[in-house]
């Protein structure tokens, strides 16, 4: 491939590629994102390829592994073009039917379609499924249409148009102005205005400047950046090149977690392809603008998501934060002006350039424009990635897009912003998704993790969980963070194990204040948020743990006991057989009893007891009822009474 020398050459290659593609030609797109691969998508793709070959259809049908469309709950996801038929939870054994019926005979296979849980209506196309229908998928929507390993796929859907536009029709100042007008705010968590950041770096003195993609996505339960880098790496790259042109940088880095091997692989390949096409490297598209990108793998430290720590790590050092100011826009990598933006922020840039700042800012609220991708996980029916317009309510995300809470359980809270965020209870579910509104209710937008909790989730334990995570991840450089978080963890562990004392809540509040005021970087400053927000909304549960040694959610292991209700036990032996601790006493026609001394509280008996019996119960804050005397344990089965 000779390097493209002009925007016209780019357009003509795009036309040529498009003309070779028949829009009516069948194409089987299988999600090859990490979630679907873990659910077996690799085997499904292999089965399709084998079956297509077996039926001699190679010349007529394309099969491709694509980026993640977001509906992880029902993976592996398969979409068949041109009809856009969407099949869910496809297994290798379904492949023969799909090829012979859907591809050859154009028949839809009912059993693989989405079924609406309430109306029982079947949805044939993606757009008919409520999960997708209620989203606005401007960034992630292309994932299922393209093979992330093919730059040609990206070019055919209009890729690198925005780059050509800025290089030949806009000055760097105009690009900065356009991004400023769009009111795009950083998607990494803090929501700093992107245009303003770019302007700072552009105006900073010095000839050498850098641009960086922050793909050190460390929030547990958040994976939208990974899906973008894995699924549409060129869109991130295009945004990065545009940003480099705007601020005057000639070198860029993509800092990506090594725990995301597929993202590393796809983005590395994307860089190579873009270089071959003349979209990266020297004299991009004949514009005299030079820019090169290097991939740097993070070695597993949450704190490196914080921008100054990330810079330290890029320089080959330990990822400890530096004091700000000076901010990276004036003194960043190797002391040079540096713009660091999150993956999703960069991916928004080509959209703004192509569609214009006004179109971009027509979506959203006063203070938050555009769309936001969330990773909707936890106790929710439709786990996955959802892209929604800013301003949508949390209730709509969880109940319309997410399909509500599984198993008829009651919603309790949603945690946004990961370990730096906070939880939001039912009373605030109508809060719109907006940087400032979420902060007002004690949470943050964060990078996009959204963890749904139901009535069985203990908010005190969740706070303990996040604080434990941060205890491990604190780099240890500053004392308030290192020791403050550790002390909070000690107190929270005591509370959740029944050793809480009067005054613990006040001690937590005091520690939270000191830690957030005196810590050096955002990790420490925001670390108390999960504690403060759960205290704000679930103080009664904290008090129940401390005063009554009771876990209202029946979740904290040390505060609960498993008990078999003798009235309900049918002596079916299921729990007895499954108990790995041998803690269930009983036998055929003998009502089962939990030996509290042997019980490890793993909860297996509770899970395996058939729901129609519901004999295993969790008890907290009260003594376990004494077991029936052995003589009274014999049951008479209903089936036997007729004999």
């Amino acid at each position, binding site marked *: 491939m000779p390097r493209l020398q002009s925007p016209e050459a780019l357009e003509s290659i795009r036309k040529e590629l498009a003309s070779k593609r028949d829009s009516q030609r069948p194409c089987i797109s299988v999600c090859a994102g990490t979630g679907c691969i*873990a659910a077996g998508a690799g085997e499904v793709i292999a089965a399709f390829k084998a079956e297509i070959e077996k039926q001699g259809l190679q010349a007529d049908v394309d099969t491709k592994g694509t980026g993640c469309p977001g509906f992880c709950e029902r993976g592996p996801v398969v979409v068949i073009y041109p009809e856009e038929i969407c099949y869910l939870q496809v297994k290798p054994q379904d492949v023969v039917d799909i090829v012979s019926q859907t591809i050859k005979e154009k028949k839809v296979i009912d059993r693989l379609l989405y079924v609406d849980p309430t109306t029982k209506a079947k949805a044939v196309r993606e757009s008919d499924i409520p999960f997708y229908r209620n989203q606005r998928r401007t960034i992630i929507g292309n994932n299922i249409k393209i093979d992330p390993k093919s730059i040609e796929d990206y070019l055919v859907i209009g890729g690198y148009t925005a780059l050509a536009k800025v290089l030949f029709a806009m000055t760097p100042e105009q690009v900065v102005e356009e991004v400023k007008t769009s009111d795009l705010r950083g998607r990494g968590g803090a929501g700093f205005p992107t245009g303003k950041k770019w302007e700072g770096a552009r105006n900073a003195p010095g000839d050498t400047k850098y641009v960086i993609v922050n793909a050190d996505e*460390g929030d547990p339960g958040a994976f939208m950046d990974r899906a973008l880098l894995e699924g549409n790496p060129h869109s991130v790259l295009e945004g990065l090149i545009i940003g480099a042109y705007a601020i005057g940088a000639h070198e860029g880095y993509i800092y990506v977690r090594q725990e995301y091997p597929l993202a590393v692989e796809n983005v590395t390949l994307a860089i190579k392809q873009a270089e071959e096409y003349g979209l990266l490297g020297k004299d991009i598209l004949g514009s005299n603008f030079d820019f090169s990108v290097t991939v740097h793998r993070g070695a597993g430290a949450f704190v490196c998501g914080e921008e100054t720590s990330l810079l330290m*790590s890029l320089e080959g050092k330990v990822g400890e934060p530096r004091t700000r100011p000076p901010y990276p826009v004036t003194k960043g990598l190797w002391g040079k002006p540096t713009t660091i933006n999150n993956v999703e922020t960069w991916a928004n840039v080509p959209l703004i350039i192509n569609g214009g700042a006004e179109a971009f800012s027509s979506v959203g609220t006063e203070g938050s424009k555009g769309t936001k991708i969330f*990773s909707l996980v*936890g106790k929710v029916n439709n786990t996955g990635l959802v892209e929604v317009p800013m301003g949508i309510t949390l209730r709509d995300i969880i109940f319309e897009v997410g399909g509500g809470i599984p198993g008829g359980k009651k919603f309790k809270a949603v945690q946004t912003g990961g370990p730096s965020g906070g939880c939001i209870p039912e009373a605030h579910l109508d809060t719109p998704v907006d940087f400032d509104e979420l902060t007002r209710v004690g949470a943050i937008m964060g990078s996009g*993790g959204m963890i749904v909790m139901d009535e069985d989730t203990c908010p005190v334990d969740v706070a303990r969980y996040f604080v434990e995570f941060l205890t491990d991840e604190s*780099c240890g450089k500053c004392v308030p963070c290192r020791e403050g978080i550790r002390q909070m963890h000690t107190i929270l562990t005591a509370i959740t194990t029944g050793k809480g004392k009067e005054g613990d809540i006040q001690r937590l509040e005091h520690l939270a204040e000191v830690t957030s005021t005196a810590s050096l970087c955002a990790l420490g400053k925001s670390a108390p948020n999960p504690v403060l927000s759960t205290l704000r909304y679930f103080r009664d549960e904290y008090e129940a743990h401390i005063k009554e040694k009771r876990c209202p959610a029946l979740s904290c292991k040390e505060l609960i006991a498993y008990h078999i209700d003798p009235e309900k036990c049918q002596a079916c032996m299921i729990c007895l057989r499954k108990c*790995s601790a041998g803690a269930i006493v009983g036998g055929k026609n003998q009502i089962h009893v939990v030996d509290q001394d042997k019980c490890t509280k793993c*909860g297996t008996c509770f899970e395996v007891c058939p729901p129609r019996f519901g004999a295993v119960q969790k008890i907290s804050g009260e003594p376990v009822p004494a077991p029936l005397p052995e003589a009274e344990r014999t049951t008479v089965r209903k089936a036997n009474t007729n004999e």
Partner: protein
Amino acid sequence: MDRKQIDQIIDKHHGEPGSLIQILLEIQSEDSWLSKEALEQVAERLQVPMTRIQHIATFYKAFSLVPKGRHQVHVCMGTACYVRGASRILDTVQEVTGIRPGETDQDLKYSLETVNCLGCCALGPVMVIDGEYHGKLMPATSEAVLKNYE
């Protein structure tokens, strides 16, 4: 891993001290641990003091200074898996393997680690053994899964 292979990795990064983390990551992924000899060689070639290498090798989670077992068990403790009961899975895995996170058993059979999110939350609670995903686990099923590895 012999000295020649390590030299090749260092050469690939043009022997730049700034690439120290990337070099260590490559040795780690080849060998699954960082031996004292390997670290000494890196220190010598890059002219970086051993204290700095030790600092980095102990700061970042990706590195191990002890050899790993035949089977690498990663239990996801991401928030989504956690609210779905991952700590009970971890309890079971610890019981079956007899080791705690970060440890390797004496027979070098298992190495156990917790990870902060594998990004396949729909399958939670999840455990990955040697790259193979096991999802929607319960304590009993996780025990059964582990017993399949010799």
